Each structure stands twice: as C-alpha cells, then as structure tokens.
C-alpha cells in the first residue's frame, strides 16, 4: 500500500481526536496539558502534509509558530499547576471546584 498524503491527514485526525477525548476524559491537569500538546501536534502534522501536497512553504513555516505557542502555553499551564499545588497537593480537576452555580 502506498503511503499517500491522505494517510498523514488521517494520522493527524486520529491524533487530534485522541487529544480532544483525552482532555475531556482525564482529570489530571498535567495529562490534560499533554492532550493539548497532542492536539497542537496533530495540527502540525496536517500543516506539514498539506504544505507538501500544495508545494507551498507557508504550511511548514506555520509549524514553527505553532511550536512556539505550544511551548508558551505549557509554561503558563505548568505555572498555574504549581501555584495550585502549593496551596493544595494532589489536586485533580475534580478537586478544583470551588466555583459552580
């Protein structure tokens, strides 16, 4: 079976869905961040494969921006988790529930 560009898109969709479902299902904030990373990297895969298919360089360049933003997001996310864990160890997303209506 030939490995066409479409298969990369399928891979990207699979990664994105795993990330999205994981983020909704898992309760550990760290695992949730990993799921966000998975979703963003799924986007990277599709950017690269679409850029190759279109023979256009802007898809490849977009990946760099996404990588930078993903790194920045993780920095902020981890800072938040550290701040929360300082007040309270072993917090999962279920414990963080002071706010509800």
């Amino acid at each position: 079976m030939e490995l066409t560009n479409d298969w990369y898109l399928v891979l990207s969709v699979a990664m994105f869905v795993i990330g999205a479902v994981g983020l909704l299902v898992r309760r550990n904030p760290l695992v949730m961040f990993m799921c966000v990373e998975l979703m963003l990297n799924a986007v990277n895969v599709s950017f690269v494969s679409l850029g190759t298919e279109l023979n256009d360089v802007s898809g490849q360049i977009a990946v760099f921006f996404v990588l930078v933003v993903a790194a920045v997001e993780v920095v902020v996310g981890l800072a938040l988790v550290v701040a929360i864990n300082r007040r309270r160890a072993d917090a999962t997303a279920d414990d963080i529930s002071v706010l509800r209506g």
Partner: protein
Amino acid sequence: MLAQLTQNSVPVELPQYSLAGLSPLIILAVGAFLLIMVRSVVKRLPATAERFATIAVGPATVLVAWIVGGLVGDEMPLANVQSDVGTLWFALLFALVLVVAGLFVSTMRAGFDAIFTSGTGLVALAAIAELWNDHHRAAWPAEFGERPVGLLGNPVTAIDDQFSFDGFSLVMAGVILSAVVLCALLLDEYLRRERIDGPEMYVLMMLSAAGGVVMAGAGDLIVLFLGLETLSISVYIMAALHVRRSESLEAGLKYFVLGAFSSAFLLYGMALVYGATGSLNLHEIRLHLASVVILKDAMLLAGLAMMLVGLGFKVAAVPFHTWTPDVYQGAPTPVVAFMASAVKAAGFAALVRVFVVTFGPSLNDTGFLAGDYRLDWQPAVFVLAVLTLLVGAVLAIVQRDVKRMLAYSSISHAGFILVGVQAASARGTAAVVFYVAAYAFMVIGTFGVLTVVSGPGDRKTSLDDLDGLAARRPALALALTIFLLAQAGVPLTTGFVAKFEIIGAAVEARSFWLAVIAMVSAVVSAFLYLRIVLSVYLGSPADDSEISEGPAERVHPAAGLAIGIALAVTIGFGLIPGPIDQLATEAIPQLFASG
C-alpha cells in the same frame, strides 16, 4: 483608484504601509517593557520624587503622543495630503485633553503603574486616531469631492499583507485600547486593596491588548492565531494572578485548559482552510475564492466549522460558553471588566474578519459576484446566535452571584452581536462595531462598580451583598442602575441604540426569526437587570455588621474616574448616537461598500 473603489472588486495588489501602521502595537509593547524597567527605578525613589514621577507621566504622555502623531502621520504611501491643518488642530485638542486628564488623575493619588498604563493606552489611541485620519485622506482624496458614507477604500497592509488596516481594525483597536485605559484606572486601587500591588497586571494587560490589536488587523491566519494567543495567554495569567484566592487560581486554570482546547480547534480549522484554499493569507484566500471553484469543499466546510468552534469559545457563544461563569466569578473583578470588553471585542473582530470579510461575497476581475461562501457558515452562526441568546438570558436569572449573573448576561450580549455577524451585510457589520464599542463601556462601568462594592477579597458579590446599596452609596447605586439599564437596552443609552441597530440589520438580512428571538431574549434579560436594581434600591442589608464595615465601599478617585468616563460614554452617546454611528458606518470593511 476611483474606478477601483466604485467597482468594488478585489484588487490583486493592496497598498502597503511602512512600519508606521504598526505603531499602536509597538507603543503597547514598548510601554509594557518600559513599565518593567522604569518601575524598579521609581519604586526606589523617595516618596515625593515618586509623586513627581507619577505627575510627570501626564505631560510625558502628551509629548510622546505628539511625537508619535507626527511620525505616524503622512506615512501613507497613498496619502494625498493637502495640508496638515486638520491634524494639527486634532493634536492640539488631544494634547489639551491629555494635560487636563493627566494633571487631574495625577493629583488623585493613583499609583505610577496605573497612570503609566493609561498613558500608554492614550498614546496608542492617538496613533490610531492619526492612522484613521490618514486613511480618510488616502481613501478619498479631496479632489473626488464628497466621500460616500461607509466607503473607506481597500485596507492598507503592512509587512507583505500580514496586517491589514482599515476602518474596521482601527475602530476595534480603539475599543480595546479604551478598555486598557479604563481598566488600568480600575486596577489601581483594587491591587492595593488586595495587596497584590505590582506592575505584572498592567504589563500583562498591555501585552494582551497588543494581541487584541494584532487580531483586529490580522491579514493572515497565522498572524490571527499569534494575536489570539498573545491576548489569551496574558489573560489566563491575569485571571489567576490573585494567587492567594483559590477561586482566582481555579478560574485561571479553567480558562487556560478550555482556552488551549479551543485554540487547538481554531488552529486545526486554519490548517484545513489552508489545505482547501492553498494559502494562509486572508487576502489571497479571498482572491482564490473569487477566481477558482473550490474542489475540496468538504475540507473547507470542516475548516470553517472548526474555526467557528475556536472563535465561539473566545467570544463565549453557547454551547462553548461553559467556562464563562466560572472564570468571571473567580477572576479579579477589574480583569473581568477587561475580559468582557477587550477580549470580546478582539474575538468578534476576528470573527468578522475571517467569516464575514474573507468568506463573504466578493467580486472577481470581471465584476461578477464570485466566491460567495456566506451560505456555508451563516446557518451555523444562526444556530449559535439563537442558543447563545436564549441560554444566556435564561440561565442568568437563576444565579445568586452577581458576577455569575453578569457572566451569563455577557453571553446573551454575545448572542446579540452574533446576530449582527449572521447578517453578513454592511449594516450588520456596522451594528457589530457599534454594539461591541457600546458594550465595552457599559460592562467596564458595571464591573467597575462591582470592584468597589465587592470589598476585600472580592467576597461580597452575591445578590444579598448589594441589598441596600442605594442607602449606603447613592451615587454608586445610581451609576450601577444606569449601566444595568443600558445593558437591558433602555432608550437614551447606548445599549438601546446598539440593540436597535442589530435588530435592524437582522430584519434587513431577512432573518426575521432571529430578530424575534433577540427581542425575546432582551425582554428576559431585562428581568435580570431589574432584579439587581430592585435589590440595590429596595433590599435591606441582612445584618447591621455590613454597614459597620463602611470604609470598604470607599470609591477611590481613579476608579471613580473610570466609572465616570464609562457613564459619560454610555449616556452621552445614548442621547447623541450620531458620532459612534458614523464611526461604525465608516468602519465597515471595504468589501461591503456597495451594500
């Protein structure tokens, strides 16, 4: 050029700005950087020198605004400048206002950081006013005679079409910068009261506003994404910055997780749109859609849907609204004011720029209507608008916490603005601009009053805590009442005009059901606002200990000034809506010039 404008087709080459076009952005970034640098010096000075430095910010603002105005002006490659007299008068007037405001604020014992941030916001506003002036002159030189209303010409772009500047992006940036000025004044006393005083909040707010300005003028999907992330990441931290309150941290984390989730959706949508159209540049996408029949229709549709999800999260459209009540309740109140005004404005600017402008109607070289992709996304926005209007209004009523109530009310306001987006017409876009601008001032005023009322630790935000506010603080109660009535859409306020414009646009676009639902939603939410007003005027405090805590509700002059400005705008432009209306009409992107 005249032919080009009247024919209203998509030109292949757009006029280019030099760096001057980016001046609002540069000012915000430099301001944020300077605040960190200067602040450490100022804090080491003796108290009198610090006062002097604070007072000096006012005149310095004027000076810098003047210089920036001179640098920005006449930078347009198209500019067909007859004389600079108009600009000079404008600058003089602006300088006078700034001197008065600067001296006024400086004598009110506001901190250096807040004044500096307001000053930076004002300088950036001056740059925007100058760009707006330039744009007018360039888009319609005097020899063309009277300029038709709403015809501002094609956007001028910078950095190879990565940014596009037109009336729309300038007005939206103006709204965001006004929010910065007012929220900085609100933050001043709040941060001292909560003992989290420091430059962080202001720096983050300026960076966040810079992101918003980028979003408003984005000419490329990746630039849009970068602007959105700059805006959002700063706001995530701002929401969580009250680190001693667990509610604040929780709000920050929730906002962060759902925000990151939504940006991943937005980004995936961008990738799919890229795959379908072969470009990330909005202008090139428009050209492509106008000239080529898209074969990968499914990919384009999926991309549009996912981008709608991503931006829907940002503007808190139902069913992507779940973070809003929690975050609004937990985040520091002045930050909520910023989120409800600036973040919302930036989100809607992006929605209009991507959906209404890029995937709206455009004419191809031969003057035929081509590439009209409105039918691909209008039904989805219709459904979002209906859900947002109804869910926001109904769920607001059952809340007990005022900040939660106002969160749901902001959701229903987002529904109203979505009605304007759904119209996808010139009038609809003007209505969106008007509504966003009017709502920004109303909501900053409302949360400004709440900042004062909620007391140390932001604890007193339940409906019972507002009981008898009129007896304790009549002026504050009156201001809150006016803001709430404006949000309800009572005549003689900007809220009424904004709702009127939106419903007018919906009717013009033949979305009659949407107009009906919007009016029903307005009636339902009126009940909510009246409930708060009743509690303010007729409720009696649960126990007398509330009253003995008297000094907690002292209105600091800086916060008072912010509330006063918001009040003046809400009532002033409610009585005389002409100027904002004119501004909104001229802010319609070129695409719709012929209706």
